[in-house]
């Protein structure tokens, strides 16, 4: 990794001559990927590099810039200083964070993960072995990516924090006739990945979804898989609790702190050091300590999420939810959403189980309205799949769903920004 080649102190010293405050974030990484086709390795990729993010603040005006070419850090610094001149002063700006005692806890880092082709090939083999459980399906493609990274955050107030990361990403897809299935999983830790089960589930979805039946257009009970809860419901929820969207009038939750916005059984918290999570964080990407935060407690909205800039504008303190996007500017996101509520056997009563939806990203992020196509959906009763559904759409409003939860499952699946249960919703509009 290149971090040692990039002296953050040199950049800080250069920046301090040009700006009131400066922050340098260096992300260095190495990764290795194997792709599979025709049940054998078809391509191997290696990659290593660094990205430098520079932010400068002058007269409460923030400038940002980034580069993936460490040799261009001077251009990057100049662009950051220049862009600050264009920005408006941030009302209420309290400065970049100062050093503080970091909470105890581990990084999302597994020292036993080796970034080598043999390790990756072993994952592929194990996924294929699992996929063989349903021989009617053919594995179309599969992939393994292994990575190791280090981020170093330093600023002109004396912060110098480091965070180590490892990553294992696995995915495969299969087809049986014209019925498809896929599975994807990622984790920093070797012992949390189950390649055999992923393979088995992928070919199961492809084979079990064949010969689907039509369903009527009507309102009915629907159970969303963890995938759908994550990609449809929690994605829009994340937009609504974003402090920047609240400030700029783009959140349906604006002005609703203390109000009931969800079923009284439902609570949602952001838990940065959740032991089941994928991205433990003791500090965010601008150096604010990250801590547990209740967002919905017993159905009542209790908090929004902020970074330093939006917190200043809102007259509150940063909640430590700054992440870093392309270009170097921060964006606001939860570290690990945890959903709690009335746990039940969500598929015991008759329902349509929806494992995946096509077009989750086309939902209206402001109002929460959506109408999407279902995939790998089944009519279910007593926890058993009765028949696959040939084709259907579901339509509704994500924020209405939060008020109409018919129970959540005890079992969960971990995604990068959340640990997610299945969710039952009654009276969901199904279009057959």
């Amino acid at each position: 990794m290149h971090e040692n080649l990039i002296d953050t102190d040199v950049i800080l010293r250069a920046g301090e001559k040009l700006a009131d405050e400066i922050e340098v974030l260096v992300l260095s990484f190495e990764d290795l990927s194997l792709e599979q086709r025709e049940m054998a390795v078809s391509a191997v990729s290696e990659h290593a590099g660094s990205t430098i993010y520079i932010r400068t603040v002058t007269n409460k005006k923030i400038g940002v810039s980034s580069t993936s070419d460490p040799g261009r850090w001077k251009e990057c610094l100049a662009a950051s200083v220049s862009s600050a001149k264009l920005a408006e002063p941030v009302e209420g700006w309290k400065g970049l964070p100062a050093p503080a005692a970091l909470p105890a806890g581990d990084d999302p880092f597994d020292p036993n993960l080796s970034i080598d082709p043999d390790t990756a090939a072993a994952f592929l083999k194990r996924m294929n072995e699992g996929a063989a459980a349903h021989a009617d399906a053919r594995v179309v493609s599969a992939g393994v990516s292994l990575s190791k990274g280090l981020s170093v955050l330093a600023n002109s107030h004396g912060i110098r924090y480091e965070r180590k990361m490892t990553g294992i990403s696995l995915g495969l897809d299969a087809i049986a006739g014209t019925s498809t299935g896929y599975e994807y999983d990622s984790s920093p830790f070797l012992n949390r990945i189950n390649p055999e089960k992923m393979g088995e589930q992928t070919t199961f979805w492809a084979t079990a979804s064949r010969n689907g039946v039509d369903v009527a257009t009507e309102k009915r009970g629907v159970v969303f898989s963890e995938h759908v809860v994550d990609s449809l419901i929690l994605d829009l929820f994340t937009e609504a609790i974003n402090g920047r969207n609240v400030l700029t009038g783009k959140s349906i939750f604006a002005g609703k702190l203390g109000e009931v916005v969800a079923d009284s059984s439902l609570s949602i918290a952001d838990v940065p050091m959740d032991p089941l999570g994928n991205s433990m964080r003791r500090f965010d990407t601008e150096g604010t300590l990250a801590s547990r935060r209740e967002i919905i407690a017993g159905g009542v909205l209790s908090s929004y999420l902020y970074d330093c800039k939006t917190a200043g504008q809102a007259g509150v303190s940063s909640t430590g939810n700054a992440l870093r996007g392309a270009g170097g500017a921060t964006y606001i996101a939860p570290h690990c959403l945890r959903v709690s509520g009335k746990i039940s056997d969500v598929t015991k009563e008759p329902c349509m189980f929806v494992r995946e939806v096509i077009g989750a990203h086309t939902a209206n992020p402001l109002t929460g309205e959506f109408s999407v196509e279902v995939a790998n959906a089944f009519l279910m009763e007593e926890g058993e799949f009765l028949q696959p559904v040939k084709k259907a759409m579901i339509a509704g409003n994500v924020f209405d769903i939060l008020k109409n939860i018919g129970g959540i499952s005890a079992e969960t699946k971990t995604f990068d920004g959340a640990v997610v249960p299945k969710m039952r919703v009654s009276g969901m509009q199904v279009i057959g």
Partner: protein
Amino acid sequence: MDTIRYYDIRYVRGNSTTITVENGDVESAGSNFFGKALIRVLGEHGWGYYTASPFDPDNSKAKQEYISRAARAAKLANVSAEIADVPYGSPRSWSCSAAEQAAIPLEEKAALLLQMEGRAKISEVVSTSARYAEQYHDVWFEDCNGYSAKSSTCRTLFTISAVAARSGNMQMNYEQEAVVGPLNLKEYLDCGEKCAKRAVELLDASAVSGGRMPAVLDPAIGGVFAHEAVGHASEGDAVRDGVSVLAGKLGTSVGSPLVTIIDDPSMHGYGYEPFDAEGIACGPTELIREGIMNAYMHSRETLAAVGLETGDAGHARAEPGMQPLVRMSNTYIKEGDSSYDEIIAECKNGILLIGSRGGQVDPGRGAFQFNAKYGYKIVNGETAGMIRDVSLSGDILSVLHNIALCGNDRKMSSGMCGKGQSVPVSDGAPHVYLTEAMVGGSGNA
């Protein structure tokens, strides 16, 4: 010595600048500088890739080292890959390096963006924002056959959005323009007001009742249909892997005789590339010609795998430092001879879908979904009440056969396509009449 049957190097160096304004203030302005090279080696069986960053195209010693690293990686590949021997072609040369765009001071661009956003501040609009971005790419390509090519491309875009609110009801709208080459914001200042007016109108729109019904697609959403439903299913990798409903259909009828769908990397649209990520310059490829499956889009590898007679190479695209994937560029449904009024009248009772909020397809299953920005009911051959949050889904082959009229008014829209990597594309269509479509909406009470 590692076996090297072929290698190429694609180095992309560039920078991008983005300005965001929000509710009358410059929210942020930032720049990104990058320089990444992908070194690709075809070994004894398959591919090895190495991404180098930083990269110096004049450092031949470093190049050799990277080629060796990619060759070592390729030794692990065990699926036999071949590449078709195809002509490199002659790049269509559009003026798109846009030095004049770079020369305009950032302050001037920010001021124009603020002007545009200011015009969106109309009654009942509670929030506005706008974004401007320009991106410069210099590409060096060379391969082991001594072939080399260079290009310089500028892409410029703006997006403006407005949120309207009344009595607890909130609606939003956005407008955008994205071009290859320069873009003069002065010519688009009225987009602010246009965007805001639509957001306010949406406050009075009703949710549509879903179900099967006749539908008219406007050029924007018709273009998304061409891209999502037909384009992705015509990509050579999906065809090779047997996960496309259009695989094996060459020469057979897959849709109405009115339907001709084309992908053209040489067209001056947002998806324009002088040459693709394998150095190949390509012209229009007719995917479907008058309802008959005519050709697939290919990389050199998928062309060799599926068959030289099955389509054209020149359709491989990649983000800087990433491997080429078979992708679309500028995809459109060819115009027909019907007027807009004829199409609405012919539909009689159905739905008109306008604008796109994006879409997704499962090419193996042949299912697609996409969402309109808004629409109108069609009652007795005329447009009636405005509707919101309406989507369309369907089976690719059924919908292609359901196309009963194509308009004479094709327009192109620009956007990004995500298929593992995100690349600029454009798509378009004339107004298109579908005799039956599956419409999704939450208005069923």
